[in-house]
């Protein structure tokens, strides 16, 4: 092994340390408790678009976010809490992805996603002098930047829009969400204004993940994503607290995994039991710390903010 040196410069590593200290100070000042939860779990994330690493020969998986364990703490009465966690997602490597990365995740009791967006914007302001953030609904973002209404368009329309925009892609099948994700990554995200932080909220109910769904026509997921300077930074929810609905979503995700030829994941029965016991109404968000450092350092490759990236690890 010749390439033993770190990928990040000493200056960037020092900046990283300062940002971590300031994140902790931010939450300490707001009485949000720092917690730590296990990296290895007997359950795994069934999200069909996220692959967990499995411990060889055992029923143990590395967590892909500390969400399930932190919700158990909330159900146990811990109150507002945050965690800076190392998380793991197999196969995610690129300019903005490393299979092992750092998430800042926090939960606020009795808040909804809008109030939490305010706090995320406060954090960005304090750490990076970010200007005030703008909010757009998922529909507004699509209409403005992809030229299509994502809720009234069907697969045929979405596919036609991709072809019209010159996106050459193999056939993605009949799931409208796959086509929406294509337009989101190829048309919306690259065209978002980059100078101010931007929240996209009110996602399709089919992309709710662990967010509450607000009834209506169409029903909307109370979920948000944060973008700034061309980068996706955070994903947050007004959290789903209904155990039955949570189990149904997990099972649906496992069904989609099987359909895609992926192994089913063991459901987190401890989380489901905690929800059964009662998760207090809350909002939660996960923010990519490595990307935060990228913005602070003004670099555009995640390897430049990691002591040792996946290839050097």
């Amino acid at each position, binding site marked *: 092994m010749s390439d033993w040196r770190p990928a990040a410069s000493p200056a960037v590593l020092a900046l990283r340390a300062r940002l971590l200290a300031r994140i902790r100070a931010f939450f300490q000042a707001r009485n949000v408790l720092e917690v730590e939860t296990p990296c290895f779990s007997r359950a795994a994330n069934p*999200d069909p*678009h996220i692959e967990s690493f499995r411990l060889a020969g055992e029923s143990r998986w590395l967590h892909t976010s500390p969400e399930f364990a932190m919700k158990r703490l909330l159900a146990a009465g811990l109150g507002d809490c945050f965690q800076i966690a190392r998380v793991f997602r197999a*196969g*995610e*490597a*690129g*300019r*903005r*992805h490393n299979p092992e990365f750092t998430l800042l995740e926090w939960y606020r009791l009795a808040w909804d996603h809008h109030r939490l967006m305010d706090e995320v914007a406060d954090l960005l302001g304090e750490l990076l002098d970010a200007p005030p953030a703008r909010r757009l609904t998922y529909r507004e973002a699509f209409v403005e930047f992809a030229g299509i209404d994502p809720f009234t368009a069907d697969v045929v329309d979405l596919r036609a829009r991709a072809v019209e925009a010159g*996106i*050459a*892609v*193999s056939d*993605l099948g009949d799931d409208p*969400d*796959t086509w*929406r*994700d*294509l337009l*989101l*990554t*190829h048309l919306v*995200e690259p065209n978002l204004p980059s100078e101010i932080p931007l929240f996209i909220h009110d996602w399709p109910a089919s*992309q709710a*993940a662990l967010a509450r769904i607000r009834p209506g026509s169409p029903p909307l997921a109370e979920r948000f*994503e944060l973008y700034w300077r061309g980068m*996706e930074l*955070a*994903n947050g929810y007004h959290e789903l607290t209904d155990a039955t609905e949570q189990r149904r979503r997990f099972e649906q995700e496992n069904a989609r995994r099987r359909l895609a030829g992926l192994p089913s994941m063991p459901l987190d029965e401890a989380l489901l039991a905690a929800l059964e016991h009662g998760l207090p109404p809350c909002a939660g968000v996960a923010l990519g710390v490595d990307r935060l450092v990228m913005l602070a350092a003004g670099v555009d490759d995640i390897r430049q903010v990691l002591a040792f990236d996946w290839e050097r690890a």
Partner: protein
Amino acid sequence: MATYSTNEFRSGLKIMLDGDPCVIIENEFVKPGKGQAFNRVKIRNLKTGRVLEKTFKSGETVEAADVIDTEMQYLYNDGDQWHFMDPETYEQVAADATAVGDAAKWLKEQDICTVTLWNGVPISVTPPNHVVLTVVETDPGVRGDTSGGGGKPATTDTGAVVRVPLFINEGDKIKVDTRTGEYVGRVKE
């Protein structure tokens, strides 16, 4: 048949796309916060040289292209095909006009070229970066002008037309950069 998953995508990887061998120039992994990940790749078609963009669903697999670059000596042109030889194995291959393309005007017998083989058949030829050619036709030289300013067209023994300084005469040997088509200098015998 060998295949690659999008996880293995990196620049330089040779894959099959719509029946043609291609090389990946750039690979970008994009993923919305939640949801489907994609690999956006910039690809060069090795037969036509055209560069195109293509998006794959992450996790998809594509067929590998059996493409290798070999250093071969250019032997001769039989009027129809260009013949090359592997200087180590003495094995010979013939490339047609489509494969040779623009490289034809730089090919001089004995020169070592890079021949790209797909399933053993030449699909493109890259001449050496610098070649020495003989000027066979140009306007008479202007004595005393060695500045190279201005210049004039000159036709070489391989048929290429190169802009040369005014002092160059027919029969002179010149060094040319094949990547830019530009005159580099006069070669003294």
